[in-house]
């Protein structure tokens, strides 16, 4: 009976902790990532997850020729640098923020609509034996009509 009570309490604790982490992730996305879109209109979609040092995420999205876009990708300060690459459907790299001092935003427009793939990677502190750092990574898109 005591075991059952302990497990229930722990489960409740873990659930509360994860909910807290998710809520924090949303708050981080809203507070830190959203302002990076500046004059671009946020599309309203929410893409954020808690990632661990060395972990990768992928995002697939269609971008339209009528629009100008800004992508903003930010990680919490507890994380090492966030790398991101934008690729076309043939996996040709069109942009890498690693070549641009790990910039958190990229502005682009297209001559024809394309499905693009974003690969986001949390780099590593390279400290063997340490607990891998974890934190929220948010990805947001802003758009405006092409001038």
């Amino acid at each position, binding site marked *: 009976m005591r*075991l059952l009570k*302990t*497990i229930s309490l*722990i489960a409740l*604790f*873990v659930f509360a*902790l*994860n*909910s*807290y*982490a*998710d*809520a924090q*992730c*949303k708050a981080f996305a809203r507070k830190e990532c959203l302002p990076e879109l500046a004059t671009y*209109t*946020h*599309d*309203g*979609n*929410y*893409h954020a997850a808690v*990632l*661990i*040092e*060395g*972990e*990768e*995420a*992928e*995002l*697939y999205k*269609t971008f*339209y*020729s009528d629009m100008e876009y800004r992508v903003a990708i930010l990680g*919490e*300060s*507890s*994380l*090492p640098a966030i790398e991101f690459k934008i690729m*076309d459907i*043939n996996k*040709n790299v*069109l942009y890498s923020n690693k070549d641009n001092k790990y910039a958190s935003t*990229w*502005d*682009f*427009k297209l*001559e*024809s*609509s*394309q*499905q693009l793939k974003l690969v986001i990677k949390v780099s590593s502190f390279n400290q*063997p034996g340490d*607990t*891998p*750092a*974890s*934190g929220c990574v948010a*990805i947001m898109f802003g758009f405006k009509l092409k001038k």
Partner: protein
Amino acid sequence: MNKKYRINSGILFVFILILSFLTACKGSKKAPDEEIQVPMPEDNTAILQDIKQAEKIFNALPSPLESAMLIKSAGARFDEALLNPVTNVNTYVTSKSMALNLGVYTCDLSFASLYEQTQLLIDYMNAAKKMADGLGILKAIEQEDIDRLEENINNSEVIMDIVSQTFMNSNSYLEDNGQPATAAMVLVGGWVEGLYISTQLVDMKELNTNKLVGRIIDQKLSIDILLNLLDSSKGNPAVDELIIEVAKLKNVFDKIKINTSPVRPEFDPASNTTVLKSEVKTDMTPEVFLELSAVVAEIRNSFVK
């Protein structure tokens, strides 16, 4: 026996503690003195390898706001008759119908907002609020959002900001509360509504000249993303039904040809923007367009009935 239980619960506690620290949002790098030391093997390559296998994949559909913007940018006219009447709002009682129509109404309200249909905009915001409330989405659309809309009814920037924020409130709540299937259904509802409005606004006489036709063809690029999004919640009966419907749509989109030349990025220092240069050739016959319109209308009408 009791001792064994005590040991097992101890192991369980340590395991859950490790899990909690791995998944908690705040990392531990900034304050090493405050770290709780969790024993880790010297070489954590194997652990990181496991983590890599659990990589996160996002399938991003155009949001209702983006869909509405695409329709407006193509020079299409506004037609209130194409929207899902707000009087239907009380007929949606299942989670599936409320999720789909949260997407539908958000697309309709985005459409109304871009065409400065002020009263409609407020009516549709209330309809979307009713869907969000019905789904138990806390604080997605609050009365103060609607009041703010009314106060800024002539300020399109503020209106778009409110529409975008309320949509983000809904989908982030659903994602964060373990309801990705519902979040996916909201997105599907919005995407199908945008496609429905677009196809209905095309006159067959201007199939070769209407810019909106190009935007409709572009939706072929999102159909696999849509199916992947639904596939990630496969097993949910409502999602399984949607997969069958969307597969019909894919069959029609497969008849449309899109040939794109390799993409060449060129940086424009004047605007600090990269231009992704490419040429595209598309081919859609009038028969395929009619078939697409009919399938989209059938699916959309099944959502709003």
